[in-house]
């Protein structure tokens, strides 16, 4: 699992975000390269979800820079992030219980047709067909697209949230704890999905509390601690204990703190200790 591509898709440099007196992000830097799966780990409150929400423009950074394909951008909101090719699965899933599966899959971007050539109405048939295709091909679950989401189980809801992130065919996918509500079998499906995404050239950032899952899915791992980047390491070169120690201590392995965006350079210096 060596990283051959080094073309950065997203670069986060020194990003800060404050909510009142609380500093959610104090100094976060990371790089997501083309075609790689980057794991984002850290204790509760380390700033993982805040970072994801900053990347899709729900929060605006107070300082620092976010670059897409080398170009500094100000992201207005999720819609803008989508046009930059980003699909997101939020930790809270961001589903509307009252609406149907199909409506949730296409929330905020329902296909329309012109009624009588003028009146734009939702194209229910296209929406149902596309929803059915996504459910079958991408998620491999059997569901009636008309079912309200409130009828679904936790795993099914998670699948719908993932499906929605893929509706726009993004080439960057952000997954904030996509497996937290899933059974073991369903987790394996998510792992397969991540591998499929990677194989088809997508770049993926995945937040996950289960370090075994992170280690099996990712190419590199960025560790956050109290709103700052501790280090970024190659997954193959780091043990579970190493990650835990960085998450808890907030210090990189061995050497002095390396908060630079280019964390992967230090990765090769550490060998697996288990």
């Amino acid at each position, binding site marked *: 699992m060596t990283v051959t591509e080094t073309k950065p898709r997203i670069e986060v440099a020194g990003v800060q975000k404050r909510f009142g007196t609380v500093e959610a992000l104090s100094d976060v830097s990371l790089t997501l390269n083309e075609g790689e799966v980057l794991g984002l780990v850290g204790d509760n409150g380390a700033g993982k979800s805040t970072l994801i929400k900053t990347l*899709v423009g*729900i929060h605006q950074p107070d300082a620092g820079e976010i670059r897409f394909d080398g170009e500094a951008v100000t992201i207005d*909101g*999720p*819609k803008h992030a*989508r046009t930059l090719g980003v699909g*997101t699965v*939020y930790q*809270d*899933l*961001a*589903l*509307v*219980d*009252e*609406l149907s599966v199909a*409506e949730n899959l296409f*929330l*905020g*971007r*329902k296909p*329309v047709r012109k009624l009588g050539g003028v009146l*734009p*109405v*939702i194209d229910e048939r296209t929406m149902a067909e596309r929803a059915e295709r996504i459910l079958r091909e991408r998620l491999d679950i059997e569901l009636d697209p008309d079912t309200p989401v*409130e*009828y679904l189980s936790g795993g099914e809801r998670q699948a719908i949230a993932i499906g*929605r992130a893929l509706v726009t065919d993004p080439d960057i996918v952000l997954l904030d704890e996509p497996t937290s509500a899933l059974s073991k079998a369903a987790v394996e499906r998510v792992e397969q999905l991540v591998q499929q995404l990677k194989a088809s050239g997508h770049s993926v950032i995945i937040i996950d509390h289960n370090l075994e899952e992170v280690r099996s899915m990712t190419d590199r791992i960025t560790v956050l601690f109290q709103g700052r980047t501790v280090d970024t390491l190659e997954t193959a070169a780091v043990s579970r204990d190493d990650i835990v120690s960085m998450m808890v201590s907030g210090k990189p392995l061995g050497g002095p703190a390396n908060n630079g965006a280019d964390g992967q350079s230090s990765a090769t210096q550490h060998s697996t200790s288990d």
Partner: protein
Amino acid sequence: MTNQSPILAPLRTLRDSNRTKLVLFTLDNLIWPILLVAFLFFSALLPEIFTQYRNIRFLLYTSAGLGAITLAESICLISGNFDLSVGSVAGFSAMAGALFLTEWAPGAPGVIGILVLLCVGGAIGLLNGVLIAKMGVNPFLQTLSTLIIFEGGILVLSSQSVYGLPVSYLWPGEAVISIPVINPIPVAIFIMCGLFVGLWFVLSRTRFGRAVYAVGGNEASAAEAGIDTDRVIIAVYVISGVLAATGGLLLTGFNGGATPTTGTSQLFPAFTAAVIGGISLFGGRGNVINTLGGVLLLGTISAGLVMLNIDPTVIQTVNGIVLLAAILLYTVVHQYRERLLSDL
């Protein structure tokens, strides 16, 4: 029964799930059987009179203004918001339109007066929407203040009723057209039905309409999915203002002139009709067509009481009891619904 064959088990599940769907459908549209029962009740007490076509027509006619104002309230509730100002917006915009035609620009065509009325309603809605969406003002407090401001504003404009309005200003609420089979019938009934069908269409068939439900169901989720929730909320309040003003116009025609009290008295009935029509106070749920059932139920009850020679001052008390019964009913239905869903 405990020993089910493996073949029958899935069939049974299928039947159960269909039954659940049927039960949920009935619960969602409960207002129509209730309306039917109320109608039959008064028909039994007032044989021959109550079921006359003339009575039903009058019932629909008196419901027109309230219907429009109920829609104004309903769209706000569906978006997860609140509008206490619908009644005073109706009264204020109707009075502004009437004064425009009689004092500010006498001789102007009635249509211009209608435009003024709609613009005033829309402008107040815009004010509500912008302050709620952009400034984060609590919708209850925001619309409470517009309720007070414009209820007072009506009296600032005129403490007396304004009559002598152009025919075209009164036409939507007053005119009667002759159509074969259904005899002469007030235009207002058609306008009301048009508004209900129109708003239902917008809310169920357009992107904007579905966004209103999404924002009402879960505003944070809607925002995360890329819906511009501020714009949706502002648009909802503008539409609410325009609908309330339309209600004011229909009431003006019904009364033959703009009176200072007609609009303001409509807030509670409109709210009651929306709730008994199944619009959720928590947003994201409800069908505006069913609020027509709510409007007609209130109309049926008050017409029935009047015809039974019961003191008209009792009507508000009865409406309040109906509202309480509806709230209790929907609370029970909500709990039942949760239980049904948890079985799935």
